[in-house]
């Protein structure tokens, strides 16, 4: 950006931006080009707030309820983990704890931290912060695991009249947390982490080289 060039988000082609206020398109792949992802921080914050709002019901409402001769029993994510905790099942319940409880909250916290450092223009640790971003990006999809656990438990335990498992209202909120945090990560532009170092290199001051 400080060289007045635009890099294509899709195909990586570097090009001279369109003159004036015209919208430039990538000559190779036809993508609309920007110096930075448009409204990156606003979108990221919006997705994070929505994710935090869903996080509470996701953990308080039951994700599954099972009906058997003994009655109906509803489980939240945490109760599901406790049920799974046994001499043989503990490695798997550890996976669920990490994927369903630790990863979503750590992801929200990490993204909030990154947004805040960009807003404040923190001058240090750029390499560490971009590594944190990549880790969040890489690990985020795994919190989806509980959605699949519940899906297939529900699909399999259809043993009328012995036992039937149904999805609970918490499942929708939990899936929403996973999707919203993934969208927050997608809309964040990691290049902003480096821009904070040189606040003078704003888009307005960039001169197209071929003008």
């Amino acid at each position: 950006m400080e060289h007045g060039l635009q890099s294509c988000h899709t195909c990586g082609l570097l090009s001279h931006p369109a003159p004036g206020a015209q919208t430039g398109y990538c000559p190779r792949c036809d993508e609309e080009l920007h110096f930075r992802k448009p409204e990156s921080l606003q979108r990221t914050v919006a997705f994070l707030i929505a994710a935090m709002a869903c996080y509470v019901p996701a953990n308080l409402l039951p994700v599954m309820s099972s009906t058997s001769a003994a009655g109906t029993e509803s489980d939240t994510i945490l109760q599901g983990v406790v049920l799974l905790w046994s001499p043989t099942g503990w490695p798997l319940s550890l996976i669920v704890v990490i994927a369903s409880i630790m990863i979503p909250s750590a992801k929200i916290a990490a993204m909030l931290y990154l947004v805040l450092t960009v807003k404040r223009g923190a001058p240090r640790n750029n390499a560490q912060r971009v590594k944190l971003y990549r880790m969040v990006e890489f690990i985020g999809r795994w919190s989806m695991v509980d959605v699949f656990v519940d899906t297939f438990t529900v699909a399999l335990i259809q043993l009328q009249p012995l036992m039937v498992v149904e999805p609970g209202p918490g499942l929708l909120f939990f899936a929403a947390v996973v999707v919203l945090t993934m969208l927050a990560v997608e809309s964040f532009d990691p290049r902003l982490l480096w821009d904070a170092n040189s606040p003078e290199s704003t888009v307005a001051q960039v001169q197209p080289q071929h003008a």
Partner: protein
Amino acid sequence: MDLASRAEPNARDGSSANSPWHHRHGVWNRPLTVPSLVACPDCDFLQRIPEVPTGAAVRCRQCGKGLWRHKTDSLNRTLALSIAALALFVIANSVPMLGVNAVGRESFTTVAGGTQQLWQDGEKIVAVLVFFAAILSPALQIGLLLLITLGCGRPRPPFWVGVLLRHVQFFRTWSMIEVMLLGVLVALTKIAEIATIIPGLALFSLFGLVMLLAAMDSCFDPREVWERIEWANHKPHPVATAPEVQP
């Protein structure tokens, strides 16, 4: 710096240098004459990608982001792997994945059966999400790569190859077969305490599919495709035509 002086002659690389190329919504940006020059997607550091031997990777000088890996026989291998992945995908979605047996009662499910049951139980949004992440995205990820590598078999890959390639990354992000497989294993351990599990052929196909998808991903080199395809602006490749003006 050498890079900057190489990039400059672009302004004189033809008669149309001062008239912008008109795009239907705006204008097309003018490419550099040095295609090996890139800006890191994670930190915007401007650098040149060197020619490295096959197998070697190029990392960003400033932030360490992997920019490119020179892969051996990328297109042919990706083609072979995507054909195999397609075959396994079809098997994995057409035969039962799991069954349970409890007190003489049996129930079977497929991947699609899982989403269908959620839909019937009223969790329609989650059902759509599971369908998207476990069936639609993997299918498109495999299908698009198959078409791309087939299209690249031509001497000058047509532009539609690029249109498909633009969407591969999106479906790769949302294709979660490996996460689903872990979820299935956790569900199995849970259920094994109350019922007998009958693993189906689809379960083993899914294991194979996860391996193939990972291999497909590590063999595919999008940069090679981008360098070969016909450009969106229908202009000849600038590197092939622009005379290198030496001051």
